[in-house]
């Protein structure tokens, strides 16, 4: 495991998802969902969803301004799950079709990228 994939203590089992899902912008997260298979997203969802509330609680205690690079990665994984959950919990087998339609809806601004 390279340093660039390290997550905060307690979240080590999720490190395998960092390369693919710890992305910098809402636009990139939305694109990653569009170009991923439902199976890839189910794998991420199944592994990460049980950790979500613990991850958010940990990051809330830290505070956005105090994030380390590892915290930023964990945050980015949570934000990718916000997209992926729509594929897994909502769209299901319709995800591939929805992805084609979604491609033209470009996210141009997000509060997640406006960190002070």
């Amino acid at each position, binding site marked *: 495991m390279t340093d660039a994939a390290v997550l905060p203590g307690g979240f080590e089992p999720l490190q395998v998802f960092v390369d693919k899902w710890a992305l910098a912008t809402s636009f990139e997260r939305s694109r990653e969902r569009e170009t991923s298979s439902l199976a890839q997203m189910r794998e991420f969802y199944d592994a990460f969803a049980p950790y979500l509330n613990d991850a958010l609680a940990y990051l*809330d205690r830290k505070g*956005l301004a105090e994030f380390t690079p590892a915290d930023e990665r964990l945050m980015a994984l949570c*934000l990718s799950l916000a997209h992926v959950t729509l594929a897994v919990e909502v769209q299901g087998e319709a995800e591939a079709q929805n992805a084609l339609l*979604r491609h033209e809806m470009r996210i141009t601004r997000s*509060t997640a990228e406006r960190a002070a």
Partner: protein
Amino acid sequence: MNVEAAKFRPVSNEQVAVLGTQPIPVGPYHDPDYFALEREAVFKRAWLHIGHVSELPEPGSFIVRKVEAARASILIVRGKDDVIRAFYNVCTHRGTELVAQSDGLASTFSCRYHMWTFNDHGELRGAPDFERFFLDKADCGLSKVAVDVAAGLIFINLTPEPEQTLSEFLSPLETQLEQLPCATATTFAEYLYEIDANWKLVYDNFQENYHLRFIHPRSVGTTATGPENPFGYATGFDFVGLHRKQALWMNPEHQPGPVQVSALERLVNDAMSGGYDELLANSEYFAVFPNFFMLNSPILPFSHTVFPIGPEKSRGVIRFYWRGEDDSATQRFAREYAVAATRDVHAEDRGVIEAGQRGISSGAIQHIHFQAQEALCRHFINSVDATVQAYKAEKSLGGFGA
């Protein structure tokens, strides 16, 4: 809660028959001549939503926005005196577009062509070798555009002297819009799309619920449809001059998935702590003439503006208004989810709207049809067409002023 009282009752056919029951001619949805009339009658006369005050956070902040429907680029500036002013983004020397950036911070604006320089009041402050012109600088200010703010939303009007103030134009919706999150928002998220469709065809999609169960079986699904209201029809319509509203029905039996619940709980909590308890229980959708929507929901506080580009081309801009930058990881996660979830719905609409345009533009049919639950679409074309016909009548009567 009293279950009987919550039972869904649709608006009756009789209640909306006053709007007419006739088929609607397709011309206005693709004809370039009709679009040319709309440019003049609608988009150069109505108040148009163009931005949000949070885009002009401090004196010197400016934005430049294209209004293709009026073939115009508009410069909007917060002056050193904190007053918001708008101008055509056009140098008064030889008409060059003045500012190339889409936003920024500046106290003066210089034209790159011959360096004519204007201040935040639009006055010409400097022009190289100006003695060689046969002009007074005081006569060379930027062309002014009427601008005003309601509920934090910036509107412009391209009539030199608008017949109505923005408040008069929005009345009585302004006081209702002032209660919504956009009024106190300090930031927003945004996504946008271009679409090969007439602006009214695009707009219509978002003011009827008849299509929900077919186009959005999952993304809307049981949030707004259910056994007692299988089409997800509105609980009420309100026609307010050229504007209109619908009260949305929400299915109390809807069960979101576990990760969705994590996001929704935070969105609801933020809405409650923001003082929006009443809005949570009372879902309404504002359709402000000509091309602006605002959902009153404090958990999905978005606007949707449909900008015409040509007779068969438009751009949609969706913005989510939030008070304060993200204050925590959970709030950041919840806001990301709100935008992504709504984007799924709008994406599904875009494809079917373009299919509608292709069919209409083929000339295969001469009319389209609106049922009673598509009454907002009918009120909309009635409003646009009345505005266009009044303009035509005015021009045909116009003698000296024409």
